[in-house]
């Protein structure tokens, strides 16, 4: 149930927006596709919604003087899909955008909202009556988990399709607050605790995402597995980006798993295996096994048993990493 009295405000300046957001029970809103449903479920109860879409630069995609791709946080997912600048600087990002939800979701939903979407759990993201019928879990302020009952840990899944690829590209975020703006790596957005997944303070918002373009010798790929090709959230996704990979440089690889934990998961051991000189087919198999080991799916999404999702993680890793290795060999051979 959403309160009929919820206020809608649309500031034009960051200072005003951050001051409004600092008030108790205010939440930012861009497309609203994710927040609206949580409000309906009663797990988000903001009294005022601060619309970010009219803030300066929020809906702009541009290349900065040094070539960096700057994406305003309120840019829609469709705009990412269709932007010639994205296609030129990081086509893999357009591919990942194209896999988010359904066309209507992409026309409404924003980049910032995609990154700041809450973690989800079948036991938590339900109606208030459903939640009241059971003891509250950690995420609801209680002291147990209905899915995994050994540890005091929440396993709600973070299912953004843009976060893994942006993390593999080592994107940076511009964060606006009442004290002005700061810049941080996208990995710093996540707390690691699925119950409270983000590190943004009250009154802070993301205004833009910065991506260093893929240059010559750089390779990146994204794969998503979902119940259906459209509409559905990922059961598991995988992003890989390798800089200096096919031009004889040392090569730096980033492997990031999505949808199988409370935040995107990097797999440094697998990265190191394939970065090593002399990496071959066996390294691919080993790296894929490591990727699967880092996936922590639990039984809290509507489809897909955990063992199945872990298996798919391995399959996606074998494909993407196998292809990456083949490209490196082809370039050196």
């Amino acid at each position: 149930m959403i309160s009929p009295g919820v206020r809608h405000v649309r500031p034009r300046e960051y200072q005003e927006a951050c001051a409004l957001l600092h008030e108790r029970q205010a939440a930012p809103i861009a497309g609203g596709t994710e927040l609206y449903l949580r409000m309906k479920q009663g797990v988000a109860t903001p009294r005022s919604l601060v619309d970010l879409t009219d803030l300066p630069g929020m809906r702009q995609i541009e290349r900065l003087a040094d070539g960096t791709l700057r994406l305003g946080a309120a840019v829609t997912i469709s705009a990412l899909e269709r932007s010639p600048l994205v296609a030129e600087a990081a086509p893999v990002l357009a591919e990942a955008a194209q896999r988010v939800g359904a066309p209507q979701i992409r026309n409404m939903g924003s980049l910032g909202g995609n990154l700041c979407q809450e973690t989800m759990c079948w036991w938590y993201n339900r109606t208030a009556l459903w939640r009241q019928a059971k003891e509250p879990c950690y995420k609801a302020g209680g002291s147990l988990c209905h899915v995994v009952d050994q540890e005091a840990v929440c396993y709600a899944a973070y299912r953004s399709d843009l976060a893994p690829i942006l993390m593999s590209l080592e994107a940076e975020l511009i964060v606006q607050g009442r004290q002005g703006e700061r810049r941080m790596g996208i990995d710093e957005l996540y707390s690691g605790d699925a119950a409270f997944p983000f590190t943004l303070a009250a009154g802070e918002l993301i205004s833009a995402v910065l991506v260093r373009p893929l240059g010559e010798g750089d390779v990146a790929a994204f794969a998503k597995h979902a119940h259906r090709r459209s509409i559905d959230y990922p059961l598991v996704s995988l992003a890989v980006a390798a800089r200096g990979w096919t031009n004889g440089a040392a090569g730096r690889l980033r492997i990031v798993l999505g949808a199988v934990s409370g935040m995107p998961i990097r797999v440094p051991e697998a990265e190191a295996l394939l970065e090593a000189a002399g990496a071959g087919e066996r390294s691919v198999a080993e790296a894929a096994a490591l990727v699967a080991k880092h996936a922590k799916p639990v039984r809290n999404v509507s489809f897909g048993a955990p063992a199945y999702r872990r298996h798919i993680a391995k399959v996606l890793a074998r494909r993407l990493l196998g292809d990456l290795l083949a490209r490196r060999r082809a370039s050196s051979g």
Partner: protein
Amino acid sequence: MTPAGDGIERAPEAPLTLRVNGEEHTLAVRGHDTLLTVIRERLLLTGTKAGCTNGDCGLCTVLVDGEAMYACLMFAARCGGRDITTIEGLARGAVLHPLQEAWIQAGATQCGICTPGMILTAKAFLERVPRPSEVQVREAISGTLCRCTGYMKIIEAILLAANSGAPQPAPAAASGH
């Protein structure tokens, strides 16, 4: 005071001006009203259907500034100043829109509940991609479920409208499908 109709700060129940099918309606909306409930229950434009009301089925699809969106996920209070098109806005008097004609010709409607959203999605799509391939059509309508037709007739209708050339700029050679 901020003028109404711009989606800017207002007290709940303050009047808002919505532009639907080219006509302006000034009405008081509450903070929690969705565009879907306002269209159906206040403007009585019941051509827009309510299905899941959770963003999963596409029945509520309308065009907002020319793009297909789920009206069930959209706060009405944020729609001031935007151009909204519902299925009622397509025909000109007794003259149907070419997509509506194509739907009849292909027999793309059975129970009909998905039809308004499908046609509006197709309209926005053909304006952007006038000569689509079948694969592009499938992708474009993938946000709306049809539980009757099996989609084939719907795809056929959209390709028919595309190839009739009526709503689009001058055709190049028909693309492969």
